[in-house]
């Protein structure tokens, strides 16, 4: 069969790899992006024991980006974006994430076409809710993205996190997912013995966090300083470009692109862990946002492209 492909014009603002698996424009719905929840498989549908309340993350929404004093921003192209939000429950950044202090959106996929490379792209923006005076930029702790990957041997999570602000002080540097040497499962699970999660899995909420913003699960990206666009008021947003490419043949990072800045990540590896039962060939992309204070913060995804090669 000879195929002729005609791409949607909306893909012009992306740089997908050879095969586009998903082009999710939230003008057409949630497109399978959903809230991140734990496994309710214990007695009375409880989940496993954890210091983190994994059931507390706020619900994702289709947003017209309606602001308090500005009007609806719509999305970059269209009316709706996918909005990740948090509860107003941020705590100190050296502590485990408090209930509801993060927002996540996950899409549950599997491997197709035996690719060497996988890539996620998005146009996005972020802002706190305008529930108080001031600029508000310093109340957004971080935004991030990671793939949850399992192949025939390993489970691993290549991801990046933009540390925007810690304790009200702007930081504006990128980190990547990799576990520091010597981190024990007990460290990772905040002291819970025989914790369910192993070091290298779910870095976004496990692993100890330190005063300078480093953590057991995060390393600073060399040269990773970047001043992203935060407009002059919490009720104004600007759309920005994001891309992360991962080599799943070599199990290593390839590139992070943020705006026009490209960070070469070749040679850097995520932490490999032993595979879990029943999830061979799983690939889940996940976005998240974290609040730094007692204020809800929002991450808007205009659209997302997942491609492979």
């Amino acid at each position, binding site marked *: 069969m000879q195929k002729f492909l005609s791409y949607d014009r909306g893909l012009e603002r992306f740089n997908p790899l050879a095969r586009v698996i998903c082009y999710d424009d939230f003008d*057409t*719905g*949630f497109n399978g992006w959903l*809230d991140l*929840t734990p496994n309710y498989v214990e007695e009375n549908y409880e989940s496993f024991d954890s210091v983190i309340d994994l*059931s*507390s993350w*706020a*619900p*994702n*929404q*289709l*947003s*017209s980006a*309606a*602001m*308090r004093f500005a009007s609806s921003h719509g999305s970059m192209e269209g*009316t*709706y974006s996918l*909005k990740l*939000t948090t*509860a107003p429950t941020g705590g100190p950044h050296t502590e485990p994430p408090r209930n*509801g202090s993060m927002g996540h959106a996950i899409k549950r996929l599997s491997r197709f076409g035996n690719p060497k490379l996988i890539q996620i792209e998005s146009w996005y923006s972020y802002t706190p*809710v*305008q*529930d108080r005076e001031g600029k508000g930029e310093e109340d957004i702790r971080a935004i991030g993205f990671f793939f949850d990957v399992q192949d025939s041997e390993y489970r691993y999570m290549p991801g990046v996190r933009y540390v925007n602000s810690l304790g009200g002080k702007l930081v504006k540097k990128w980190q990547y997912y990799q576990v520091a040497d010597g981190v024990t499962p007990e460290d990772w699970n905040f002291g819970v013995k025989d914790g369910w999660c192993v070091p290298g899995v779910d870095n976004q909420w496990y692993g100890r966090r330190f005063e300078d913003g480093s953590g057991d699960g995060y390393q600073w990206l060399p040269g990773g300083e970047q001043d992203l666009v935060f407009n002059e008021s919490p009720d104004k947003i600007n759309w920005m470009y994001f891309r992360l490419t991962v080599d799943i043949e070599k199990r290593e990072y390839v590139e992070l692109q943020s705006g026009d800045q490209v960070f070469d990540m070749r040679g850097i590896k995520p932490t490999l862990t032993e595979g879990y039962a029943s999830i061979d060939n799983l690939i889940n992309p996940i976005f998240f946002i974290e609040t730094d204070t007692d204020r*809800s913060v929002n991450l808007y995804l205009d659209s997302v492209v997942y491609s492979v090669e």
Partner: protein
Amino acid sequence: MQTTNTSVIARRVKISDDYATLPYEAGWANEAVTFVQAEGDHPDLAIAVEVSPDGINWIRRTGGTLAASQQIVDLPLAQFGNWLRVVITGATSEQPARVLVHLNLKG
């Protein structure tokens, strides 16, 4: 064909005081049905659905009761604009509740 989506806007939350769900944008939908469930023993709970121009300032639109003898109640709503939330009152530290709130939207 219409779009429909169900969000869980309170997920088995333990409450012992007045409680409100986070502001939720639902402007794409024409109709909404909120389901409030209690898991286990609970006192009579007053349920209200509120609407808002901005997700910050709220107006009470409709209400109902989840009696101690009931497990689940539904509250339909139309012409709600963009923002809505659910407010639950009646739980106390002496008589707490564990609640689960589903929001079904269609439009």
